[in-house]
């Protein structure tokens, strides 16, 4: 592969810089576009993910390291996705909480009377 000598070669850092700068400008512009909140949110996460990947792959040289090191770098990402899925049921439960507690409170209120 062309990566055989990549350890000594350097990526064109200025290209990465311009890509990051342009993506930042797009992010700031996307916020003001007349799209739905969900679509804008999705676009922002995709843009931020691309920027983070560019920094990790080129500035942190992850692209030119052994792939096992990539597993170390990806572990926190996997665990965070796992954490978000762990939190999802709690979020839906929280939204129902006020109604449940209101019912219990009113029920107690009637029994005491």
């Amino acid at each position, binding site marked *: 592969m062309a990566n055989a000598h990549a350890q000594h070669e350097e990526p064109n850092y200025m290209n990465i*810089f311009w890509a990051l700068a342009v993506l930042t400008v797009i992010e700031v512009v996307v916020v003001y576009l007349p799209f739905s909140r969900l679509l804008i949110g999705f676009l922002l996460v995709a*843009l*931020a993910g691309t920027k983070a990947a560019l*920094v990790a792959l080129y500035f942190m040289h992850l692209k030119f390291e052994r792939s096992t090191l990539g597993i*170390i770098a990806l572990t926190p990402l996997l665990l*965070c996705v796992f954490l978000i899925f762990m939190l999802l049921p*709690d979020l839906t439960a929280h939204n129902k909480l006020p109604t449940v507690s209101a019912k219990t409170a009113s029920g107690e209120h009637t029994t005491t009377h």
Partner: protein
Amino acid sequence: MSEAAAVLHQEIQPAETPLTPESWGKLGMWVFLAGDAMSFGGLLAGYGALRASSPDWPNPLRTLGISLTAFMTFLLICSSVTMVKALSAAKHGDQVKFRLFLLLTIIGGTIFLTMQAYEWGHLTHEGMTMSGNPWGAALFGTTFFILTGFHGCHVFGGVIYLSCILLSGLNGRYTADNYNPVEIVGLYWHFVDLVWILVFTFVYLIQ
């Protein structure tokens, strides 16, 4: 004689790490960063959960303002570029460029911290604190100060770390044969930049 010395030298060499053959320190920094990423991931996930379950979350775009922070994002990207340039100069044995670019990186981090201090002062003046704000959910202020504060501490630590590398490199220690400490401080600095990209998106931009 010299062969025997070479053999002896080989014997006392520590075992080579299979992940980062050039240095153990680099592997250590990657493992630290993976742990640190989990800290930030936990904070961001907690922030998301609190925000999603708060019906009166203030609009960050209108309350925080993004022109200043967009510039701060740009500044950190620039300081990441000067960092890779500093490493590249060290690899090529260019001491002057190495010191210049490392100094620019430190200055970039310092300006970032100054702007963050200004932003915090401005928001506090508007009534936003850890425990409340005039616009809605009190947790808006709590999560904002915790997330940006935790990141700001990382930038502050990074500026000190970079300064130590710059000072220890003033005698020309970092050369084409010995640039690992520069690469390792670079990993830390780029990570701080990477986290800011995520904080900027999740705290300031997403509505």
